[in-house]
């Protein structure tokens, strides 16, 4: 256990309602040696939960409306146990931009040196970006699958209506797409729409 970073005990709270992304981030933090990573199950009564958990670092997804709730912790108030500050500094501009771009924001307990937290935020940014790429790929795969289904249906329609073979039907779709400078899936969709109209 000697190779743990000195900040292994830092209590890190993750607020993200996307369970997969949250799991990816938590795993990443643990792999890097941060043993004390927790999350909340719901954002109801978030402030009370945060005070109970009493974290030193809070990571929150920007798509979570409860981010505004955290802003209240900057305020001087009798219920604040420890002052929390946003991870901002005029000199941190690059990091802040990278974080907002990745869709995440960080808050730290006042007095905690920013250098100690930078590594955590960098890790968070890279995991969020990796997740976004994954999501993108998933979306692309899904739309490719959808396109495949549309093309198959259009082929079937053409085969039946024009007495073509499957190969000929596909060639016809491809030629039309090239002539009209459109995607094959778009032409296929037109065929399906037309067939439905003419039915």
């Amino acid at each position, binding site marked *: 256990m000697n190779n743990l970073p000195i900040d292994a005990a830092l209590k890190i709270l993750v607020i993200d309602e996307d369970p997969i992304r949250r799991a990816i981030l938590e795993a990443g933090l643990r792999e890097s040696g941060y043993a004390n990573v927790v999350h909340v199950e719901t954002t*109801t*009564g978030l*402030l009370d939960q945060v005070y109970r958990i009493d974290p030193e670092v809070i990571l929150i997804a*920007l*798509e*979570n*409306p*409860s*981010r*505004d*709730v*955290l*802003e*209240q912790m*900057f*305020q*001087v*108030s*009798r*219920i604040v146990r420890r002052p929390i500050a*946003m991870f*901002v*500094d*005029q000199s941190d*501009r690059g990091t*802040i*931009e990278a974080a*907002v*771009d990745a869709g995440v*924001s960080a808050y730290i307990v006042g007095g905690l040196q920013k250098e100690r937290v930078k590594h955590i935020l960098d890790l968070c940014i890279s995991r969020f970006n990796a997740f976004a790429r994954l999501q993108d790929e998933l979306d692309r795969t899904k739309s490719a699958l959808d396109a495949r289904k549309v093309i198959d249906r259009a082929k079937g329609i053409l085969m039946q209506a024009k007495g073509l073979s499957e190969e000929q039907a596909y060639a016809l779709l491809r030629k039309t797409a090239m002539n009209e400078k459109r995607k094959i899936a778009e032409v296929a969709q037109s065929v399906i729409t037309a067939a439905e109209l003419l039915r």
Partner: protein
Amino acid sequence: MSAPAKLRIGYIPLADAAALIVAVDKGFAAAEHLDIELVREVSWSNVRDKLNIGLFDAAHLLAPVAIASSLGLGHVKVSILAPFVLAGNGNAITVSPPLFAALAGAAGGDITSPIVSARALAHTVAARRAKGQEPLTLGMTFPFSNHNYQLRFWMAAGGVDPDEDVRLVVLPPPYMVDSLAKGHVDGFCVGAPWNSLAVDIGVGRILHFGSEIIARAAEKVLAVRAAWAGDHPDIVTRLIRALERAAQFVADPANGDGVAELVAARVGVTAELIRRTLEGRLKVAPDGGTRTDARYLLVGREGAARPHPVQAAWAYAQMVRWGQAPMSADLLAAAQAVFRPDLYDAVAGSPTATARVPEDGVGAFAGPAFAPADIAGHLSSWTIKRPG
């Protein structure tokens, strides 16, 4: 004509974004060769940060956030300019039926008067404390917001200390109604359409319009970075012109239906609700009682689009009163400099006789007239405040 300027503008789906929505969706922006992408956001923190780092060129923003950003309160200091007030007023205080009943029972007069209701709140708070009950919890949308300041101003006038006697919590507006229904909060101050939604489903009762607390508050501004505005003076001018025409379009009762439909489509509520909101004709009680105040939400009307530095000074005074900012002449000057009537006037002309602004620019229901030149003196007239 050159290619239109592409702009990304962040906004929160609220009725008080009407002028911005109409400018984009009704073609006023396109007429100024502005190609605007309206980006819907979920939190004011996001709008602020994305504006600050340049992901947005401009934003529909809480006026106090524009000021806080320029003063460097709570986060990175970025100078923001507000050349156009998208909406004046528009908030309301809504309470749960049980709290309303308690206030009505404790009221020593007409409860529609804010001083009567605020004193009734003081009685209710004391009675709960005597019985050993939990303090009341009230929701608002952001620490730097008129919702926060109006709620605090109102209760403090009745003798309730907002930091000691009740719990004030930030709640994202989409969660307000649900929190009231579940009893997580006893009331809230929020913008339209959320108060009306609480009334419509029978979980809340509108106690006061924000305009009854403060007759004229700059609620949402069009915010741009000062540096960006300096680099793009021509775009700023075109933006103001597009918004001014849109605001005039919104203000014309003849366009009521069309405006309500455009805004409703972006905000995600019925056009009828938006129409009632823009006309200041709100159902206040689940049993059907209504209240009308033409100043409830001011978009374009009564000269509401013109930024008045005195209203920025009032917001700064609230920050000082509640311990969010230190008192200093420099900060006051910086706060007032956020509001740029000169940029507005250069496009829209000088204010006309229809621009009805209260004598002190604010028109609070209690206390002495607001005096921006002597905020420390003004605040000394209040006993409930944080030590400055």
